[in-house]
């Protein structure tokens, strides 16, 4: 259990984390979401007592991090993949950590095998790829077999096999009753892994809910129906007072009705259905909706880019009429 | 157009890339997939003339990269987001690249705007987060407004907003008729971005086909059917009639049926004939991830194993009675057989099918189909 109480961090004038209070509970995977620059990393660093909070506090099982006797046995963390001395072998990097917390050396080889680095344990970590570095960082987090685990972007650089592995690992660890706290930008991963979500934006808590509630509250769900008797279906729905929207590909979308009821309705009128599926927006959409106002680095392009954008010179206008003017001519309105 | 012919690269005794031949066509986003250590980065470096092939060659538009006239105006690449001198500001970094390529300085401010870094353009890139570094790398690739673009893991470190932006950017670049070549480990991203896939494993070509073909060649789609609970015998009746019609039916935990081998209209007709009322009839496309995992199974270099916790007594506090999942959770390993077994969709209600507006269902967010034991024989590993 991790408790955050009024956690605040200021860097000069800039408030990175603003009065954040929440709890991370055991027995589930808690996802930690927020746009770049929302204060996720700062929060995680304050949890590990690497940054000093301007005010507020973090408690790990009721204790301040500095009061933990052998912290690796309570909390394991992966903050950045390459936070190891490159000139030291993977084994020795972990051995230093193990010894400082009186973890037997046999455990080091063990976690290295577990993350799939057994074969390169004696190699200097300098030559590791991002994915291997990530595995080494995960091994370090697992070293003390702690009851709390924190992962910052664990799938960065991992290949699909690794992503699949870490996903199942986190679920299994949570199922054993541990507290798993994981930040990620990959909504599709989060949707598969997390049970609970804590969302922050510009340092403030935006949401602290279960995954199901989060998606439910932040996106619309609807039922899609497809039938060879489209006209009749629409009439029947209309007759029942149900509003159906038509999509481009010949399906009907109905908001706010249960699929069971719609199935019964269609069957009652003898309408053949080729599809009757309840649709819910993805976590990604729900997240985008919630954090729309809290994004710091906006790229310059239209947000709803699902339809193919116009083909043609999109940024070239200012170049075509400008023969010979090469430099010093700042872009207008960039 | 990128063309590799018999491309081979050896480092001492280790062969990183072996006899690789493929073409990357313009007007489409081509995904480049493979496990860690399969030679993806080496291949991309050879494309850019950074590594010399031991044998074979790779050309861009008919020229080897190093003999390309005006290369930076024809090829843009993002290889490593952090390959930047940290002491230099973002703007100066791009400026020296622009000057090197004879690109007007005004273009620098333009691409900074395109990637959303205009407010931090004067800051030293040392302090950039991974996501900002990635944007800077993308800006460098776009600088020459080139015909061919190579991206190595472009969404690494980006936030969802940035991921969406990159996704749309690549589609737009391709729709303008450019050649876009993207390597990534994120199958859910690839599924919504790429049109074509090139898959390598252990330095060899495993597959070169469109995303659609790839998924259907390496996995099976299925339909999820739920019947009215008013008449419980309907379920058995429907199962019998579906099986008779040649479909395979598997029950799911929440009472739904998983049907493979029959189209949705056919299932609907059969249900109608059996006088069973349907409460759900939804199509499920197998995910790209599943298809990919099937194909590359044998070509993975760093494989994780289960945690046996040797030498450690688990500290007290977890695994206490009464906690959910206390009853022996499956070890998080990837066994050799039956290795892909995500929870049945019914247990994972949030992972509902994808964005309704997306051109392709976001495979990663859709409940991935479990490896159907009956289809395993048909979708044999290519080797």
């Amino acid at each position, binding site marked *: 259990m991790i408790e955050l109480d009024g956690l605040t961090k200021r860097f000069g004038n800039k408030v990175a984390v603003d009065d954040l209070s929440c709890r991370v509970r055991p027995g589930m995977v808690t996802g930690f979401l927020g746009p770049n620059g929302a204060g996720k990393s700062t929060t995680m660093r304050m949890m590990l007592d690497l940054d000093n909070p301007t005010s507020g506090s973090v408690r790990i099982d009721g204790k301040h991090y500095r009061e933990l006797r052998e912290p690796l046995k309570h909390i394991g963390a992966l903050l950045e993949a390459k936070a190891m001395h490159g000139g030291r072998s993977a084994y020795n990097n972990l051995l230093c950590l193990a010894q400082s917390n009186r973890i037997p050396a046999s455990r080091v080889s063990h976690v290295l095998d577990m993350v799939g680095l057994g074969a390169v344990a004696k190699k200097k970590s300098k030559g590791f790829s991002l994915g291997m570095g990530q595995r080494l960082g995960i091994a370090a987090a697992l070293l003390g077999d702690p009851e709390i685990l924190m992962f910052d972007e664990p799938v960065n650089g991992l290949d699909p096999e690794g992503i699949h592995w870490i996903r199942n690992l986190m679920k299994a660890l949570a199922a054993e009753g541990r507290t798993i706290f994981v930040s990620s930008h990959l909504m599709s991963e989060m949707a598969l892994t997390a049970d609970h979500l804590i969302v922050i934006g510009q340092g403030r808590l935006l949401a602290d809910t279960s995954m199901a509630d989060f998606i439910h509250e932040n996106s619309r769900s609807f039922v899609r129906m497809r039938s060879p008797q489209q006209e009749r279906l629409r009439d029947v729905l209309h007759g029942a007072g149900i509003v159906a929207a038509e999509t481009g590909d010949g399906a009907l979308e109905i908001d706010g009705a249960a699929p069971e009821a719609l199935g019964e309705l269609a069957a009652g009128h003898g309408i053949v259905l080729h599809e009757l599926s309840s649709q819910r927006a993805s976590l990604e959409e729900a997240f985008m909706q919630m954090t729309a106002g809290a994004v710091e680095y906006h790229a310059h392009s239209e947000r709803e880019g699902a339809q193919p954008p116009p083909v043609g*010179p999109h*940024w*070239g206008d200012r*170049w*075509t009429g*400008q*023969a*010979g003017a*090469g430099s010093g001519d700042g872009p207008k309105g960039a | *157009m990128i063309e590799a012919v018999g491309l081979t690269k050896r480092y001492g005794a280790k062969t990183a890339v072996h006899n690789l031949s493929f073409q990357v066509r*313009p*007007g489409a986003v081509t995904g480049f997939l493979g496990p860690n250590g399969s030679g993806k980065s080496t291949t991309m*470096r050879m494309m*850019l*003339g*950074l*590594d010399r092939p031991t044998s074979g060659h790779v050309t*861009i*538009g*008919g020229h080897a*990269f*190093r003999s*390309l*006239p*005006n*290369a*930076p*105006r*024809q*090829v843009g690449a993002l*290889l*490593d987001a952090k*390959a*930047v*001198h*940290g*002491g*230099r500001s973002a703007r*100066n*970094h791009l*400026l*020296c*690249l*622009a*000057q*090197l*390529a*004879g*690109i007007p300085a005004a*273009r620098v401010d333009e691409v900074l705007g395109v990637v959303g870094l205009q407010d931090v353009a004067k800051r030293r890139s040392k302090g950039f987060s991974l996501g900002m570094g990635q944007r800077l790398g993308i800006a*460098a690739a776009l*600088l*020459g*407004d*080139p*015909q*061919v673009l190579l991206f190595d893991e472009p969404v690494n470190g980006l936030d969802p907003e940035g991921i969406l932006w990159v996704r749309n950017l690549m589609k737009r670049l391709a729709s*303008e*008729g*450019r050649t876009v070549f993207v390597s990534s480990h994120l199958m859910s991203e690839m599924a919504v971005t790429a049109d074509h896939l090139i898959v390598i494993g252990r330095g060899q070509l495993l597959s070169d086909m469109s995303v659609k073909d790839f998924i259907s060649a390496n996995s099976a789609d299925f339909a999820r059917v739920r019947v009215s609970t008013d008449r419980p015998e309907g379920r058995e009746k429907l199962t019998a009639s579906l099986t008779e019609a040649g479909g395979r039916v598997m029950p799911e935990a929440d009472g739904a049926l998983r049907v493979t081998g029959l189209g949705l209209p056919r299932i609907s007709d059969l249900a109608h004939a059996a006088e069973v009322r349907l409460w759900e009839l939804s199509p499920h496309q197998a995910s790209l991830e599943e298809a990919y995992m099937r194909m590359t199974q044998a070509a993975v270099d760093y494989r994780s194993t289960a945690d046996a916790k040797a030498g450690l007594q688990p500290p007290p506090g977890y695994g206490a009675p009464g906690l959910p999942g206390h009853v022996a959770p499956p070890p998080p390993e990837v066994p050799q057989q039956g290795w892909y077994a995500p929870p049945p969709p019914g247990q994972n209600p949030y992972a509902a099918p994808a964005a309704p507006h997306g051109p392709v269902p976001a495979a990663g967010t859709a409940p991935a189909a479990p490896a159907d034991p009956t289809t395993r024989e048909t979708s044999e590993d290519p080797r």
Partner: protein
Amino acid sequence: MTTPATPPPQAPGQPFQQPQQGLGGPAGTYASPIPVRSPGLGDAIASEWTKIRSVRSTMWTLGVMIVLLLAVGLLSAFAVGASDAELEDTPVLSLGFFGVLLGSICVITLGVLTISSEYGTGMIRTTLTACPSRSRVLIAKSVVFFLLTFSITAVTTGIVGLLQTAMLGGATPGGDDWLRATVGVALYVATLGLLSLAVGALVRHSAGAITLMIAVVLLPLVLAMFMFSPSLADLQQALLEYSIPSQLAAFYDASVTPSGPSGWEPLWIVLGVTAVAMTGAFASLDRRDV
């Protein structure tokens, strides 16, 4: 080393072409609206100049070098002036020698860093992607670095020399003395920097290359100190004469040994060595994987 294979440069006066398809390349289906211009060595030089001026550590290194040249040169003049020691036949300008020797360490560091920092950060891959011609990159780096260090050294040594002659009377240096103590020294130091740049390109590791170059500068003198045996006397003599500090001293007619290179000879020696190293650096850049 010639300018790399690029299409013939555009006629001067109309540097930009209208955007067109397939400029010397494939019949692409996308044409950029941005005017296409074939980059040349001039662009690469502009780029390298941006690289050098936009990094603070470069400016620091150069600043330290100027301070060393000025401070050590003036301090030694001050010390000589204060001690009332007779200058005898020691040329006044030679008091700048110690500053230049220390300053040359800065030049070596900068020369190595000019190229090895690109390897350290991975920037080299971006650079070579933007300009696949290795020779153009190497030449541009060399030109910018050489001109920069040469002008700074020449100006600073000139100022130090003027101040020294103003502070101490002594024999008035002749025109040739002045030329060698400023332009000659600057040429020598800048060429030494080029040698470091070439070594940096060969070694590709900042600390390693700097250590190697400092060893090249200092080790011959240290080794010579250890050669007591008469059988090694010739070697000891050669090491003393051809060590870089004594070559540098030759520009001030203050060489530690009576024989050995004198006048402008050290410059030709270092130029020869640098040419060989540069050829090696180019071959390495051209052949080896980045």
